[in-house]
């Protein structure tokens, strides 16, 4: 079965969420959202999924602070973060490039990253763009650090970095990324070319598995139907599902 890159990313992210109790997904995250819903479909209802942008899948009733309190209570096992810049120590920058406060390029801001990155055990960094513009040697502004000294309270941290080219796992002890798998059509050379930071490479390079037929049926069926409530554009454009028919 042919598939799109978004579908590959969904089936790549979903296994990272399996066996967990509760996954939260921030706003404007259709691919992580679909991955969480796919993991839930495959897990027979587990993990529980809280999608902030969704009406149906947002179960918080204590205001905007509840997501963060809930994470601090240890009730959120996985969360997704992005970054205008990401470096090899898993530092992320959501603030701006070249100068502060008067940055040459200004991003929206750090959102909850400076907190969630510390308290959610499995933070998955996700970036569609994989270029030297994003994957930098050292971020210009640390919205949230990838690692912390041992005396800093930090049950959480980076778990993996998933891009349109490959999957990196993060080794918290070594504070470095290691290439875990390369997406179909990508080469190690390409990835090195497009990545501004150094990373570990295993002796044998794995390819990211293509989406299975069963997963594609789920994604284009019940998962797509579910996600189209929150992201109708995404469902229509990527999954070719109309809200009306989905």
């Amino acid at each position: 079965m042919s598939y799109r890159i978004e579908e590959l990313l969904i089936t790549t992210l979903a296994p990272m969420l399996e066996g967990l109790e509760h996954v939260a997904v921030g706003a404007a995250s259709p691919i992580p959202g679909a991955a969480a819903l796919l993991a839930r479909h495959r897990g027979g209802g587990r993990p529980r999924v809280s999608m902030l942008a969704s009406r149906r899948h947002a179960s918080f009733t204590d205001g905007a602070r509840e997501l963060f309190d809930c994470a601090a209570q240890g009730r959120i096992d996985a969360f997704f973060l992005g970054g205008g810049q990401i470096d090899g120590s898993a530092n992320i920058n959501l603030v701006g490039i070249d100068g502060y406060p008067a940055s040459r390029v200004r991003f929206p801001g750090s959102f909850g990253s400076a907190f969630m990155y510390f308290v959610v055990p499995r933070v998955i960094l996700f970036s569609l763009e994989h270029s030297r513009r994003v994957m930098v040697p050292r971020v210009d502004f640390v919205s949230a650090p990838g690692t912390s000294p041992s005396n800093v309270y930090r049950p959480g941290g980076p778990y993996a970095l998933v891009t349109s080219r490959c999957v990196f796992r993060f080794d918290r002890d070594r504070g470095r990324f290691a290439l875990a798998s390369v997406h179909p059509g990508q080469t190690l050379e390409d990835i090195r070319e497009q990545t501004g930071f150094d990373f570990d490479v295993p002796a044998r390079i794995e390819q990211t598995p293509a989406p299975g037929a069963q997963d594609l049926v789920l994604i284009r069926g019940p998962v797509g139907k579910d996600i189209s409530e929150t992201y109708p554009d995404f469902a229509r454009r990527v999954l070719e599902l109309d809200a009306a028919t989905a």
Partner: protein
Amino acid sequence: MTNLETLVEAIHDGASVALAPDYSGCAMAAVRALVRRGARDLRLIAVPQAGFQADMLIGAGCVGSVEAAAITLGEYGFAPRFTDAVKNGRITLRDSTCPAIHAGLQAAEKGVPFMPLRGILGSDLLTHRDDWKVIENPFSPDDAIVALPAIRPDVALFHAASADRHGNVWIGVRRELMLMAHAAHRTLVTVETVVDDDLLADEARAAGTIPALYVSAIAEVREGAWPIGLAGRYPADAAHLAEYARLARTAAGFERYLDEHVRGRASAA
């Protein structure tokens, strides 16, 4: 009950004003009234992020400083007037992170001078916030934690679905609006409709109601969140928001937007 123009008169130039995020109760009509009045030097506090409200006030020159975890138009892209003001150093930035703003407001709600919060250590946010302090956890040795000062806004400004004639305001699950009201000195609210019964007398609606005790003034403004949506009432006006995002990319385009949709709509609010 008052009218929109009178409501925003209570927001003095230089006031600190807490605003709701785009997914909550945006008082867009009141923001337009502030622009028309030519408000100056407002110190915006985004709870914890803000979008169109902040971008428009910044573009119109009403804003002196911004405390926020993020300013963005969401799916409509970066906030262009905010971005431009940052690049040109026209506003003072107090970059924050979502739970730090909630914690600061909760400190004000509880009348304590500060609130401790996990995380943040090692973030450059801390480097640039000399009003944040790192203290030792008194209950555990060698355990540093960030202490955030209370955030007590002069004004909380938001839009809600309904109010009753006693001044109670129904916000449903949008509890950040209640936190804003508890924390702020004064709370100014625009509502879609004023209902005749007592919101607190109905056990279901009471749970989502801010008591009149915390509410300084209310103005009834139909579609007061427009062009933002109001959950359960009306969706966002996507075409209009996209048009804003397009025009606001340039100072001239933004001025055109104001002329057409803000200054020209005085009577329609």
